[in-house]
């Protein structure tokens, strides 16, 4: 059979990037205890190196790199493909997972005197599982394979939410699980219909075959609905704040920074890679409106929170809203759609780093003060200067003030909406920034005010520096050169004649 896809140079790296954390789980599980922690920590540099190597190969080839598993090409076999966005997301995941792992050493060390304990064992295994699942999501080329990856992500994320075992965290985890299961099953139903209509689940083969038939529309709607439930886009965001606010800080950072991006990434894959040939104006508008509503509603609720971690979690709801503006702003093959695409991806990255740093800092704050009530933060900034510097700088990126990745993202979004004549989207973009300034100020104002706080303990300097480092990445993204945005375009199918 001619025309079947074959493995490209460097393709084997994609398999290794997935198998490394999976092997980590297998090896951690049997001896357990301290070994799980060591294996997770020691594998991070290798994972990071693999992500860099994949990015290098993609950049050198100038097109996606491919691996056909078992040497069996699609449609019968499964292909892995890494393009520009896959490579960048792999690097971002490696950085944040590494940061979370080193940050979590303080809380999730196996205590002396026991061979193994519940919290650490769960955390180190699930952290590796999240990494593995995200790696598959970023490079997977087969919709059913991606379903299994989504489930892997769910099974890894839910136990992290209730890792400390309080009843409210159990309730949050259960609610998260039910939403996530609904999301997966809805996605799977769409997968079944796609297979029934076109006899393949390979993304690039489907892209050549799909037509705007009712079956395809039903399949795409079901998959999108499922992915939105998992991404917590308004109005199916209800599970997110309690889940993300109640998890331990290291887990919250990974959940808010990366896990919700996994299902968002698949939404991008679906509409921009599987269905680029479809006239998607209406769907893009609906997603844009839902995103705008999320920005406004999420920010307003964030403004009213009494607890810092809940405020940050609602801010995630709002910032996720921005992501969905990419659908109207990057549609089709206009000159502005490249700007919209860059803006969307920049928002993914900037939010991932800034939000992870924010949760890390909130965790340090709660540990040092013994609470995370915003009203009782008076004078805390003087007691914990480095932590509050991180919160302020990360807040800068969330608001979208220069110089920061958040600024770049929002600036590019404004450009794309004006260039495309869709000026209506500028309203939620600007309003969201103002509201974000409001909720960041709500944290900083009492902290900077006069007052005396009693510290239960001092945060570890290394943990503070990890949070600061992530913030600096979020700010540095604001200086990303044009080559970076060109890299993000690698492998993105652009169909002429659509708008």
């Amino acid at each position, binding site marked *: 059979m001619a025309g079947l896809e074959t493995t490209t140079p460097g393709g084997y790296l994609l398999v290794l990037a997935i198998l490394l954390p999976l092997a980590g789980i297998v090896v951690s599980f049997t001896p357990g205890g301290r070994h799980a922690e060591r294996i997770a920590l020691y594998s991070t540099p290798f994972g990071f190196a693999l992500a860099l190597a994949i990015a290098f190969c993609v950049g050198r080839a100038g097109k996606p790199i491919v*691996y056909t598993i078992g040497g069996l090409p699609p449609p019968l076999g*499964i292909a892995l493909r890494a393009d520009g966005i896959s490579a960048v997301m792999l690097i971002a995941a490696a950085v944040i997972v590494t940061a979370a792992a080193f940050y979590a050493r303080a809380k999730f060390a196996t205590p002396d005197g026991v061979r193994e304990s519940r919290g650490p064992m769960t955390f180190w295994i699930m952290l590796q599982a999240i990494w593995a699942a995200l790696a598959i999501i970023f490079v997977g080329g087969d919709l059913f394979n991606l379903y299994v990856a989504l489930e892997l992500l769910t099974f890894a994320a839910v136990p992290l939410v*209730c890792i400390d075992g309080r009843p409210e965290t159990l309730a949050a985890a259960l609610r998260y699980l039910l939403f996530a299961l609904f999301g997966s099953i809805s996605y799977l139903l769409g997968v079944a219909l796609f297979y029934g209509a076109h006899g393949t689940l390979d993304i690039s083969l489907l892209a050549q075959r799909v037509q705007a038939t009712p079956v395809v529309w039903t399949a795409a709607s079901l998959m999108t609905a499922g992915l939105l439930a998992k991404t917590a886009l308004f109005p199916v965001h209800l599970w997110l704040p309690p889940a993300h606010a109640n998890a331990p800080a290291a887990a919250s950072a990974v959940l808010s920074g990366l896990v919700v991006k996994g299902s968002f990434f698949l939404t991008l894959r679906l509409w921009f890679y599987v269905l680029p040939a479809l006239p998607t104006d209406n769907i893009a508008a609906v997603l844009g409106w839902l995103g705008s509503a999320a920005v406004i509603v999420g920010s307003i609720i964030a403004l009213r929170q009494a607890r810092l971690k809940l405020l940050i979690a609602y801010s995630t709801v709002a910032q996720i809203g921005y992501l969905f503006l990419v659908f109207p702003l990057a549609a089709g093959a206009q000159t502005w759609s490249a700007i919209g695409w860059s803006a969307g991806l920049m928002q993914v990255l900037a939010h991932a780093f800034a939000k992870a740093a924010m949760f890390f800092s909130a965790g340090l704050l709660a540990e040092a003060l013994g609470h995370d009530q915003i009203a009782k933060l008076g004078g805390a900034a003087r007691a914990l200067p480095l932590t509050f510097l991180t919160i302020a700088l990360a807040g800068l990126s969330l608001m979208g003030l220069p110089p920061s990745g958040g600024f770049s993202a929002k600036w590019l979004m404004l450009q794309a909406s004006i260039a495309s004549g869709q000026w209506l989207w500028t309203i939620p973009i600007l309003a969201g920034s103002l509201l974000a300034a409001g909720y960041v100020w709500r944290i900083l104002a009492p902290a900077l005010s006069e007052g005396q706080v009693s510290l239960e303990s001092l945060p570890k300097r290394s943990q503070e520096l990890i949070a600061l480092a992530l913030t600096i990445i979020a700010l540095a993204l604001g200086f990303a050169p044009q080559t970076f945005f060109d890299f993000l375009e690698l492998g993105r199918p652009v169909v002429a004649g659509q708008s």
Partner: protein
Amino acid sequence: MNLLSYLDVVLALLIVGVASTTIAARDLFAAVVGYVAYGLLLAFVWIRLYAPDVALTEAAVGSGVTGVLLITAGKRLGALKNAAPEVQPAFTFKLLTGMLAALVAGALAAAILLLPDPPPSLAPEAAAAADGAGAGLGNPITAVLMSYRSFDTMLEKMVLILAVVGVWSVGADKAWGSAPAELRQPKATAPMIFLAQMLAPVGVLIGIHIFWTGANAPGGAFQGGALLAAMWMVIMMAQLVKMPRVDAQWLRVVLVSGPAVFLIIGLAGEFTAGSFFAYPPSLAKPIILFIEAFMVLSIAAALPMLVAGPPSERSDP
């Protein structure tokens, strides 16, 4: 319409009817029992769709082990005496939900009826590949699971491991390491012990047989493993063996053996057959059976552990 078609219609109505009662039942336990009965009926539909492998899996896992899980859960919830009366949702909410559900079901039914004709299929490709990558396996489903889509199957084994860790992690801190609560309390009765003693040896044999024939006929690692899992649960219910401690090394090794062997052989494929998760053609069938043997063990250990729940403090000696 012949007789079989009438029976099909009766079966369809029966399934939808029983499914409705599990949704409509006022009592939690009645809903659970209805669900188990419904699962068995569903296995017949799979037979009618020429899917004996799925029918076996549905009967063993989808209805059987899931049934044990749900009934145990219903019983434990009932024992807690806290199934407080549920707040009934408002009528308008019910109406709106009903309309949404009907809309989704209608759209789905329409989509199914509108599936293209002639239908696309990978069956010809699978048939063509049966001698090469299909590795001479007579059962095309085993070939798909273990060769063309072995990556999915390996990941799904990982999902089972994560689910076990997840279920264990729900327990109390101080219980970690100890055994889950016994499936049947307080004491096994004589008929239960008799049943376990008589049934288990036969069941284990049949389980191994189903796994072994799975290479060429309906059956395979999933179905065989599920049967072995059921036998282990029967023996544990009769308290002929104790529930294992979750930190027992042998249990962890057995649980992880399936994915571990799969992973190692998948990695080795790069050197023996030129690609990850490829098998050398001459050895493909024995290698696949080798991997499947460990998968059977993993499944047989994982399913009972998932049913048993988190480690419990009470079971400490």
